[in-house]
């Protein structure tokens, strides 16, 4: 369990950013993974009072506050209209309803976890992230850029016509995936996001090679085999739609 001396509810993004600069301070989202660490911090910075817990629907995109919970994403009715059941399919396996009522989209993105279903899902949807200091950039760029001490404000997902599928393989229902794939079909063709390789999710075209690795949940060869089967299956399903 993490420990810290001081708890501060940030009153502004500027204050949160400034407090976050010393390495001994930490920003918490839902705290689901963070609280498992044994790290000792001086100050815990809570963003819960900054109005970042809403999903706003604009004409061309959805603007999602970084403190929006996974349950809010899973149950958003407008998402179903634009993304079908993709959000539900990707998030329903994450531990349980109670967990998803706490875990935040910002925490899921900033932690850059290799097994993240959230990142695997958002990558092929042309998602952008907006930070307090660094401004707005694609999620793909953020994932490959050096990590900097900054505050994630919003996530933007454009409203576009596309077919989306999400598939994952797990040893048990609510376990971390052995492999996760989000496939998108739009006017330009197919785009895949492959997560839990076990490295962080990566965007690829169908003809591109993906590199896999081994860990406790599965070998490199097993993941490669799963990927080739799921990719073909998903493309076939989307072709028929």
């Amino acid at each position, binding site marked *: 369990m993490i420990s810290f001396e001081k708890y501060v509810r940030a009153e502004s993004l500027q204050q949160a950013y400034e407090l976050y600069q010393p390495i001994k301070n930490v920003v918490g989202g839902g705290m689901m993974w963070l609280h498992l660490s044994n790290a000792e911090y001086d100050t815990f910075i809570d963003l819960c009072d900054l109005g970042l817990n809403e999903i706003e629907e604009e004409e061309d995109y959805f603007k999602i506050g970084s403190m929006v919970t996974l349950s809010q994403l899973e149950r958003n009715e407008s998402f179903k209209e634009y993304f079908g059941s993709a959000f539900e399919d990707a998030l329903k396996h994450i*531990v349980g*309803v109670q*967990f998803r009522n706490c875990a935040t989209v910002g925490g899921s993105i900033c932690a850059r976890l290799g097994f993240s279903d959230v990142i695997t899902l958002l990558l092929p949807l042309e998602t952008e992230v907006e930070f307090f200091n660094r401004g707005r950039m694609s999620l793909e760029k953020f994932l490959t850029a050096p990590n900097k001490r900054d505050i994630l404000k919003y996530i933007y997902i454009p409203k576009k016509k596309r077919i989306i599928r999400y598939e994952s393989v797990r040893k048990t229902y609510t376990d971390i995936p052995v492999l996760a794939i989000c496939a998108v079909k739009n006017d330009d063709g197919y785009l895949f996001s492959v997560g839990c390789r076990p490295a962080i999710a990566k965007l690829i075209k169908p003809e591109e090679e993906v590199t896999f690795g081994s860990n406790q949940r599965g070998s490199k060869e097993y993941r490669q085999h799963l990927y080739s089967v799921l990719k073909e299956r998903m493309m076939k399903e989307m072709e028929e739609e």
Partner: protein
Amino acid sequence: MQINLRINHENIRAEIDPDMTLQKFLRSQKYFSVKCGCETSNCGACSILLDGKPVLSCSVLAARAEGHEIETLEGLQKEAEEIGGFIADEGADQCGFCNPGYIITAIALFKENPDPSDEEIKIWLSGNLCRCTGYEGQMRGFIKYREWRNGR
């Protein structure tokens, strides 16, 4: 630091450590239906309602509950007895340690969706672990509770 919150419709003011979890705080206030299970956000034994939504109290800071409404089974006795009876009738409570977590989640489910499908019940209860039984008893109990509640 000091926090002000409502627990089971009662205003509470208390001194806490800044890094104290809600689970530890609630147990320190004698709400023993909130169990210490895995304490790694997995088992659901510490489930409580925060503003009506089920959450894992082992992963929520007590400081973050400032100004919020907390409900534990101590404040939901009638519902707990009803649902608990159906679980017991199906032999799904060998040691009973996981029961409060199951019941809190079920209360939240039936409040949000009075007539959930079997699949919806499974999805809602998948965050609660039971190490004595095979989950079949709990499922039977909740399905029978649903049928009884809806007069079927």
